[in-house]
C-alpha cells in the first residue's frame, strides 16, 4: 500500500462524467462502446434500415446464397437474411435492456436499504438474497414460460428476478463502505433525511459501480434471452430475432447452408464481446476508485 492517496476530481455535469468514465476504459473500452452504439442504432431503426420485408417468405429462394442485392443470401423460407438480422436486433437488444433496468433498479434499492439500516434489516435481506441464489436464470425463465406461455415478456420478467440478487450482493458491499464514510455522518448531524442522503450523495458516489454492473449484466441477459428464444420459449417465429434465427436455420448447418444461422451467431457474439470488455474495464476502474 502506498502512502499517497490518489485524489480523483469528479466532473460536475452528468455528460462530462459519462465521457470521463468512458475515457478511463482505454481504447478497447471506447471501441466496445462504438460497437454497442451501432447495435443500439440498429435496434432502434433496424426495421426501417432493412432493404427487404423481413417476414416475407419466398420458398423458391430457400437457402439461396449471397447475390448482388442480397448480401447474406436467403434463409430456410427464402427470406432476406440481412433484413431479418437488422429487424431482429430490436428484440435481441430491447429484451436485455428491460432486464437490466428492472434488476439493477430493484437491486440498487435493496442494496442501499440493507446498507443504510444495517443490523437486523441487513441480516434479513442478506439471507433472503442467499436463498434466492438457488434459482438459475434460464431455469426460472423456462418455468415462467410454462406458467404464462412462451414470450419475451415472461422470460424478461423471470430473468430480472433471477439476476436481482447478484446485483444487490455486489452493490450492498459498496453501499456499506460508502455508508461508513464521515460525510454521511456529517450530513446526518446536519439533519438531512435518509432519502436525501442516499439519493443525492450515496447512490451518485457508487454510480460507476452500478453502471459497470449493469453493463456486465446486459451481456448475461443477452445470452440467456437469446437462448430462451433459441429454445422456442421466447420471441415466437416468424418474428425476427437473432436467437430464433439460429434455431430456425439450424437444419441448414447439416445440409451445407450454414450462413443464415452463423450470421445471427456472429451478431450475438460481437455485441456480447463488446459489452463484456466495456463492463470489465468499467468495473476495474470503479473498484480502483478511478472514476
Amino acid at each position, binding site marked *: 500500500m502506498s502512502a499517497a492517496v490518489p485524489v480523483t476530481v469528479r466532473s460536475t455535469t452528468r455528460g462530462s462524467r459519462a465521457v470521463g468514465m468512458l475515457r478511463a476504459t482505454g481504447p478497447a473500452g471506447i471501441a466496445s462502446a462504438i460497437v454497442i452504439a451501432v447495435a443500439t442504432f440498429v435496434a432502434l431503426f433496424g426495421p426501417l434500415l432493412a432493404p427487404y420485408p423481413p417476414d416475407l417468405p419466398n420458398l423458391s429462394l430457400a437457402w439461396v446464397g449471397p447475390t448482388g442485392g442480397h448480401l447474406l443470401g436467403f434463409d430456410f423460407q427464402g427470406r432476406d437474411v440481412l433484413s431479418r438480422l437488422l429487424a431482429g436486433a430490436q428484440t435481441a437488444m430491447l429484451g436485455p435492456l428491460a432486464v437490466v433496468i428492472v434488476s439493477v433498479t430493484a437491486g440498487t434499492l435493496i442494496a442501499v436499504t440493507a446498507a443504510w439500516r444495517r443490523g437486523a434489516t441487513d441480516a434479513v435481506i442478506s*439471507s433472503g438474497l*442467499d*436463498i*434466492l*441464489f*438457488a*434459482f*438459475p*436464470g*434460464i*431455469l426460472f425463465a*423456462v*418455468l*415462467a*414460460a*410454462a*406458467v*404464462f406461455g*412462451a414470450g419475451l415478456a415472461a422470460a424478461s420478467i423471470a430473468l430480472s428476478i433471477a439476476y436481482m440478487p447478484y446485483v444487490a450482493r455486489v452493490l450492498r458491499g459498496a453501499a456499506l463502505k460508502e455508508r461508513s464514510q464521515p460525510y454521511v455522518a456529517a450530513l446526518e448531524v446536519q439533519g438531512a433525511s435518509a432519502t436525501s442522503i442516499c439519493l443525492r450523495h450515496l447512490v451518485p458516489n457508487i454510480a460507476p459501480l452500478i453502471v459497470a454492473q449493469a453493463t456486465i449484466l446486459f*451481456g448475461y441477459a443477452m*445470452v440467456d434471452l*437469446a*437462448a430462451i428464444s*433459441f*429454445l*422456442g*420459449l421466447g420471441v415466437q417465429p416468424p418474428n425476427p430475432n437473432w*436467437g430464433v434465427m*439460429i*434455431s430456425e436455420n*439450424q437444419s441448414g*448447418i*447439416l445440409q*451445407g447452408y*450454414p450462413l443464415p*444461422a*452463423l450470421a445471427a*451467431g456472429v451478431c*450475438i*457474439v460481437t455485441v*456480447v*464481446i463488446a459489452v*463484456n*470488455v466495456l463492463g470489465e474495464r468499467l468495473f476495474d476502474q470503479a473498484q480502483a476508485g478511478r472514476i
Partner: protein
Amino acid sequence: MLVASLLVASFVIFAALYLAPGNPLAALSGGRSLPPASIAVLEQRYHLNEPFLAQYWYWLDNALHGNLGISITLRENVSTLIASRIWTTAGLVLYAALIILVLGIGIGLVSGLRPGVLDTGTLVTTAVSAAIPAFVAAIVLILLFAVKLGWFPALGNGTDLLSNIRHFTLPAVALATASLAIVARVTRASVREEGDREHVQTAVSRGIPPRNVIQRHILRNAAIPITTITGITIASLIAVAAVVEVAFSLNGLGAYLVQSAQSKDLAVVQGISLVLVTAFVLVNLLVDVMYAVLDPRVALGSRAQ
C-alpha cells in the same frame, strides 16, 4: 441455509404452477365433462379442494418419497421419465465440468505464471470465447467437426459407452466453451495477484526455489477464488445443459423440460425443476465443503471471501 434454499425453491416451483391458468380437473379428464361423483373422487384423490398450503405439503411429501406425479402427455410416472433421462444430463455436465477443470484451470495457471506472448494470446482468445453462447458454440462445432471433418456425430445419444463418449464430446465442449474461458481468466488473475504479494516477493528474493514458491505460496492462496469461480460456472451448466441438449437432439432432462413447458405438462416441469434446483444447490454445497478443505481458516467458522 441449504434446506431453506431448497424449501423456498420448491415452494416457488409449486406456487408458480399452482397459479398457472387452467383447471387441473380438465387436465385430468382430458377436457371431457365429468359426472359430479367422479369429480368428487378426483378432488379427494388429488386433494384439489384443500387449502393451498396443504396441497403444497402433500406435493412435497410425495416428492420426498420419489413420487412426482403423472405426466399428462405420456401417462407415465414423472419419476420414471426423469430416471431414464437423468444420466444423459449428468454425463453431459460431468464431461463439461472435467473439460473446465483440466483446460480452464490449466490454461489459467500457465498464462498466470508465464507472462509473455502466450499470455496475451490467452487473454484475447478467452475474451472472445467467454462471449460465445452454448448454442452458437454448438452450431459452429457441428459445422466444423461433424459436417466438414466428420470426426464426431452431429446428433443423438449413442448406444454403448464408447459411442456415448463420441456423441457427448461436441455437446460437452459446446457447454464448456464460455465457462472455460471465464475460469481461465479468473485463475490467471488470481495467480498473478498472489504472485505480486510481498511475502511471495520476499520468498523469491531469499532464493527459495520457484517450484516451492509456486506450490506453497501462490497456489494455496489462489485456490480459494479459483474454487469459487469453478463452482459457480459448473453449477450454472446444470441449467444451460438444456440449450445444448436441444441443439444436439440429446435425450436429457433439460430438453424434456423445454418440451414439457411447451406442451404445458406441468407435473413434468415441476419434477425436473425440482431435480435441477436440488443439483444446483448440492454443487454449491460441495464448493462450501471444498473451502474448508483448502483453507483451514474457513473451518474455524469464518466465511471464505
